[in-house]
C-alpha cells in the first residue's frame, strides 16, 4: 500500500459505514430488544470494521443518539457511561461523545 492510497481507503471506510448504519437504522427501527439489534448483519459488519469505525460511530451518536453502545464497547472495551445515565439513551450518547473527544477520536 502506498501513501497515496490512504485517502481512498478512508473514503471507502466512511462510505461503507454510512451504508451499513443506514441499513441498520432501517432494520432496527421497530426493535426493542437490543440483543436483536446487535445481531443484525449490518451491525455485526460495523463491529467487524474495528477501530476504524469508532470515530464514525461517535459522530453518528453525536448526530442522532441510538443504540451504538454495544458496538463501541465491543470495539474499544471501554464503557464511559456513568451509573446514573444508564438506560437514558441521550445521556449515554453524550457520555460516549465526551469520551470520544477526550480520546481524540472526535473534535470538540
Amino acid at each position, binding site marked *: 500500500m502506498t501513501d497515496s492510497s490512504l485517502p481512498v481507503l478512508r473514503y471507502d471506510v466512511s462510505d461503507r459505514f454510512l451504508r451499513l448504519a443506514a441499513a441498520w437504522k432501517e432494520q*432496527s*427501527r*421497530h*426493535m*426493542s430488544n*437490543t*440483543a*436483536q439489534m446487535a445481531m443484525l448483519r449490518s451491525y455485526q459488519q460495523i463491529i467487524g470494521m474495528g477501530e476504524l469505525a469508532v470515530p464514525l460511530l461517535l459522530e453518528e451518536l453525536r448526530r442522532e443518539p441510538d443504540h451504538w453502545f454495544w458496538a463501541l464497547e465491543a470495539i474499544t472495551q471501554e464503557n464511559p457511561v456513568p451509573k446514573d445515565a444508564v*438506560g437514558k439513551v441521550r445521556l449515554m450518547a453524550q457520555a460516549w461523545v465526551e469520551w470520544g473527544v477526550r480520546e481524540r477520536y472526535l473534535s470538540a
Partner: protein
Amino acid sequence: MTANADFPRLTTVNHRDTSPPTVDYNCIAWAAEDTENWWQPGMVWIPADWPADDFGLGALEAVFRSLGYADCGQDAGLESGSQKVALYGSGFVYTHAARQLPSGKWTSKLGKGEDIEHSTPEDVGGGLYGEVVQLMKRAVPMAATAGNPGQPS
C-alpha cells in the same frame, strides 16, 4: 404507521399513532409505564440482578412478575379491576410487550418508533415481533382503570 413487513396485520382501522417516534424509552418501559428509560437486561431491568446477557422470554416474564403481574391464560379481554400486558417472542428471544388500556384497547411503543393504540394484542404480531406468547394481569385500583388512556399513571 402503515402495514409493512414488520407489522403485516396493522390496518388503518385497527390502530392509530399516539406519539411521535423517540429513542428515550422502549416497549418494555412503556408497558411498565416508564417513559424515561430504555429497558434491557444489564441496563435497566427488574429484578436488578437479572443476567445482562439473558434476553430470553423468561427475562420479560420476570419483569412483569416483579411488577405484580401473574399469568392469565389466553383471555385478552377487559376485566374490571385488572390491568393486562401481552408478551411477544420470536424464537427464544423476547421481542415486545404491550399494555391494555382502560378502554380495553392496547398500547404499544414500536421500538425506537411511535406509540400506537391498537385493537387487539395480535394486531402487532405476525411479523417482526412474532406472536403473543403470554398474557399476564395484575389487580389495579378501580380509579386507575378509569384513568387517562395511553398515559402513564
